[in-house]
């Protein structure tokens, strides 16, 4: 069998698998008692509906807008803070228990407080996203500093680099690959939280779409359409970050053993 043919057959298989899953889904829908759960075809119809009503673009933009703001804000604050905390062991010792307690508190648990402080709307959602990204990014930065081999820092000092230069020419490139991975994972979290935040605290966006479609008329085809869109966009965000990851670290070279 020529390599090209083999390649094609191998590539078809995962697609075939997904196709089988879709068929099973359709069968399950047809045979279900409630007739409420939509099948794949109805979902596609739902997406088409959304596009026609002009609602799709508006909601996707709203969700992305909130994610961007919350995420960037968190990154800009958490990364320098984390790098500093990682650098000074005393600082870390002091703050670590506090961080460990705050970390497991689901950002969603903050919802009432967010609404209290910001009312129902964009700000509350952005605040929630900020919260959910801040601590993970902080920890990523702290961890990244720990993993910089002492060798590099010593070499920098050996060559007489000033502290500022040390940070920009040694520390920053050394932590970059790990930071980017952390950013990617946290972006995924932000995407999850925005959906939840929109379900409860705002009046637009994909999360809102899901609850609204159900509440205002049991339009489960729109619900599932929303889910699919959320999944697709989440995937795209992840893939974009991965290409970024690869671009930077290919040039740099991982020093993992």
């Amino acid at each position: 069998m020529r390599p090209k043919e083999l390649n094609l057959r191998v590539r078809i298989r995962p697609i075939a698998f997904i196709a089988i899953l879709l068929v099973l889904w359709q069968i399950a829908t047809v045979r279900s008692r409630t007739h409420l759960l939509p099948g794949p075809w109805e979902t596609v119809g739902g997406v088409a509906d959304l596009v026609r009503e002009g609602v799709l673009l508006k909601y996707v933009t709203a969700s992305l807008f909130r994610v961007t703001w919350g995420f960037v804000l968190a990154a800009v604050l958490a990364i320098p803070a984390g790098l500093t905390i990682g650098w000074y062991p005393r600082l870390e010792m002091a703050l670590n228990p506090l961080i460990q307690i705050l970390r497991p508190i689901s950002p969603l648990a903050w919802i009432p407080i967010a609404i209290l402080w910001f009312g129902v709307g964009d700000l509350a959602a952005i605040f929630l996203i900020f919260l959910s990204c801040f601590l993970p990014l902080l920890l990523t930065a702290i961890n990244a500093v720990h993993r910089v081999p002492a060798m590099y820092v010593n070499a920098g000092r050996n060559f007489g680099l000033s502290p500022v230069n040390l940070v920009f020419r040694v520390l920053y490139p050394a932590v970059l690959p790990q930071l980017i991975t952390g950013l990617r994972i946290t972006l995924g979290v932000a995407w999850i939280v925005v959906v939840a935040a929109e379900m409860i605290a705002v009046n637009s966006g994909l999360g809102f779409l899901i609850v609204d479609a159900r509440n205002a008329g049991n339009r489960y085809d729109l619900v599932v359409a929303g889910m699919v869109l959320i999944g697709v966009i989440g995937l795209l965000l992840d893939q974009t970050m991965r290409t970024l990851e690869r671009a930077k670290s290919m040039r740099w070279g991982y020093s993992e053993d």
Partner: protein
Amino acid sequence: MKAQTMHTLERFALPLLAMVLMLALWEYSIRWTGTKVFPSPMAVEHGLGELLRKGLLWAYIADSLRRVALGFGAAVLAGIPAGLALGWYPAVNQVVNPALQMLRPISPIAWIPVAILLFGVGDATAVFLIFLSAFFPIVVGGVSGVANVPAIFRRAGRNFGLSGPQLLARVVFPAALPQLITGLRLALGIAWVVVVAAEMIAVDSGLGYLIIDARNSGKRYDLVVAAMLIIGLIGLAMDVCFRRLQAIPSVRWGFRSES
């Protein structure tokens, strides 16, 4: 000896100092802004006491933990074999993986309406959501654990005459265990976050429900914050348990650089 006692002193004194400062800041900002609604540390403490006296607290904690146990347990039972199988048979992984990658980014929270549709309001929905959210990290942990087993170990296993299943059990599984445990730890963390979310929306008991309920029926923000703190502490306890697990000698070798 003196240096060591200084060090131990620092380890406890510094965080204590930081927390006291935090609490003082909190208390002070309440006074300074004169807010009537946001609770002061004292108010939270009273709120906790009240919950304990009413006996609700333990019931809610038990509910949340139970749902996590069921959902996480199911995810473990399904996820570990799935992860190991996918890691062991790259051909199967190649077929199944794209489907998994598409399902993964759909936030478990987005599944809520569908879950309610399928299971109604109640425990089953919460357990289902927890299962969904814990399943993927466990599978990923299993797959990368198996994939990262150094070829040397497999070679040595075959050299000593191990058959396929024996190789899997005696070489691949122990070698993959550290990464599997990391996946489990991640999954448990996610499960704990999701249970709170699920309880806020889809059930009527548990810590998440407490938060929503306390606010809705009387703006009891002291209870809200109290509940948040408890959630944090339980999550912390879970994390500590995992760290202990990671220190066991037969897996400790896999965690060389943990902070």
